[in-house]
């Protein structure tokens, strides 16, 4: 066992960090919020050039077929810089759905994702009722049971089981404003059915696992971005003749943020390993990672705002680029309560052996 990133994985993360530092992500996020997708999509194309959009696409389909650990390393950096756009959807979940479809249907889309020409998004009720940034996406999918959770029938393929898992190409409807100005959730209507039945069910399950894991990494990265930003502020902002970071109340609040983030990260890597290995514990491990990283990111967000004070409550301050994003992301891809319930159910299942020690426990 060697539970540490390899040098290559660290270098990959560092290279993405450098790319995103140079790309001025905060400016792109502000432009995205006003409806100007240009600067943001340019960064998405740069990331595709660095291999990010091919990570979750199998090699046989033209992607990199990377280990999910590399996907979470990348997502952590995208969260670290407040990259706008449907990252968990386009980079993690959609490739799983497309990978399950016949090549003549999905081949072009997958090639577009890998090359960076295509950004895709997804609605999957009930946990993802809207397709994020559907107006910026070249492909919008809808996944779920043929009967919508509201009971409103979606367009089930004729003669099929109304409860069968189904993947549709979707048609964007009304867009909503989000509490996060850089998120634009769209209602969708089902278009052509791309797949239905047991194969689709497996693909949807896998897509939700990848998307949830990616959301955990995005949240942990966002927490780190907020911590970095706030530590810089606390070092330089003077009050009572001292940097506010010299006050113990500020120090301890930021230490608590650091602790939460530090102990969320190993859960994310372990969940990525379980997902890769198709381990029986994968659902449990992904939910555990999401619970810990969303809690840590939310603590980071509240603390960042509080330590910044009044300036933190302005659009001008970069705290605004993460604050509502963190809160929105931690309600998408399953609520904290649902993920805790998943963990508990796995631990109390008849086959669970939580007393078993060792790395595989």
């Amino acid at each position, binding site marked *: *066992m*060697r*539970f*540490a*990133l*390899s040098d290559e*994985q660290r270098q990959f993360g560092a290279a993405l960090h450098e790319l995103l530092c140079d790309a001025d992500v905060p400016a792109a996020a502000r432009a995205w919020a006003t409806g100007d997708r240009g600067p943001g999509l340019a960064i998405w194309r740069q990331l595709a050039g660095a291999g990010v959009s091919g990570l979750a696409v199998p090699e046989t389909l033209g992607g990199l077929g990377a280990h999910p*650990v590399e996907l979470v390393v990348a997502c952590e950096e995208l969260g670290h810089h407040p990259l706008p756009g449907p990252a968990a959807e386009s980079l993690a979940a959609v490739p799983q759905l497309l990978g399950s479809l016949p090549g003549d249907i999905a081949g072009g889309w997958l090639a577009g994702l890998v090359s960076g020409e295509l950004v895709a998004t997804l609605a999957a009720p009930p946990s993802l009722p809207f397709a994020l940034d559907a107006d910026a996406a070249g492909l919008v999918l809808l996944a779920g049971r043929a009967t919508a959770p509201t009971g409103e029938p979606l367009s089930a393929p004729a003669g099929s089981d109304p409860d069968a898992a189904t993947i549709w190409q979707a048609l964007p409807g009304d867009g909503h404003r989000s509490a996060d100005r850089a998120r634009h959730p769209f209602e969708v209507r089902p278009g052509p059915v791309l797949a239905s039945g047991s194969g689709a069910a497996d693909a949807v399950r896998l897509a939700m696992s990848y998307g949830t894991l990616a959301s955990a990494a995005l949240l942990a990265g966002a927490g780190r971005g907020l*911590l970095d930003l706030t*530590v810089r502020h*606390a*070092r330089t902002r003077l009050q009572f003749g*001292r*940097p506010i*970071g*010299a006050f*113990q109340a*500020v*120090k*301890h609040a*930021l*230490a*608590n943020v*650091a*602790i939460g983030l*530090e*102990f*969320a990260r*190993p*859960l994310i*890597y*372990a969940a990525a*390993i379980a997902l890769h290995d198709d381990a029986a514990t994968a659902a449990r491990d992904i939910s*555990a990672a999401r*619970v*810990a990283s969303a809690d840590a990111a939310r603590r980071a967000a509240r603390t960042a705002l509080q330590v910044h004070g009044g300036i933190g409550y302005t659009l001008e301050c970069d705290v605004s680029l993460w604050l509502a994003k963190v809160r929105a992301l931690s309600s998408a891809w399953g609520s904290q*309560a649902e993920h*805790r*319930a998943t*963990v*508990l159910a796995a*631990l*109390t299942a008849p086959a669970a052996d*939580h*007393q078993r*020690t*060792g*790395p*595989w*426990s």
Partner: protein
Amino acid sequence: VNLEPDQAVEAFRAEARAWLTAHVPDPPLSSVNTAEGFAAHRQWERTLADAGLAVVSWPQRYGGRDASLAQWLAFEEEYYRAGGPVRVGQNGLFLLAPTLFTHGTQEQRDRVLAPMATAEQVWAQAWSEPGAGSDLAAIASTAVRVEGDGDRSAGWLLRGQKTWSSRAAFADRAFGLFRSDPSTERHRGLTYLMFDLRAPGVTVRPIAQLDGEPGFAEIFLDDVFVPDIDVIGEPGEGWRVAMSTTSHERGLSLRSPGRFVAAAGRLIELWQRAGLADAALGERVADAWIGARAYQLHTFGTVAELEAGGTLGAESSLGKVFWSELDVSICETALDLLGPWWEVLGPGEPDGDWAGTYLFSLAGPIYAGTNEIQRSVIAERLLGLPR
């Protein structure tokens, strides 16, 4: 990054599990904080040592097995899983021994480590003083230089008072910091010394803890002679020597993840037996397991860093706050599952150990450097905030 079980680790784990299953006392030993219980725990250490399992990570010449860090972690996991007794020699094994391996002389290692491993000598720690708690550098107890004469070697006379000295009520020897240069202040001019708790001039006054038992004691020192051979490191360098020990105390050695993984497992069993339809409590049970798993995985990561030649410094403060708060929340959740019964359940009854475990968990955020001190260390040394 992988979590593949390592063959050598798993073989070692299997051996430890088999031995512990056969030998862990049932019913459990009586409290280590009574004379009778202390003697029983000392005997248990002897049994462990005879099986070659007392100090698995030490070199063979001192009674160890040269176990790797990963093997040591596996041993700890199995120890807690089996419900093994409190390690009465813990202060010596996990605090003094690492200091001797780093800063001690060969003579000291040869003299001190073997009887420590068999618990023939049990060690207490003597850091805190009435005026030096969180502010450890305010130590006022002194070590005054005495030159040798025909009857005795050169050495030091200790004078002052130590307190919150774990295990001192029944232990044999102690180690701690003393001000050897009265002209200095704070971190300078301190010397790290070992002394005999039964030497002339030593008075030990046990202090009853929350549970009524003397888990720690005050030590009064009235011109207690210590020979030069019991100075660890150079005189005046004690702070630096001690700091290498405290990061062990906060980090890997004192609280191995096995303890929390085992406690979270027992909590889940309790939840299942309780059969409550209380979603809020269920969420706390899930959080307890998530926390224990996070601490376990984080420790695997630390081991990987250490095996690659890294060192453990201020990072250990992150873990100390995390595990001590986790410990309290696991115990609090257990008590809430037991409801009004927990206060009357005692050792030996089903679920009877939660009350004692809970009281002990409340000390965690205080000892080994309060969590407030740790948070300041994290802020200043890891985040780079100004002092």
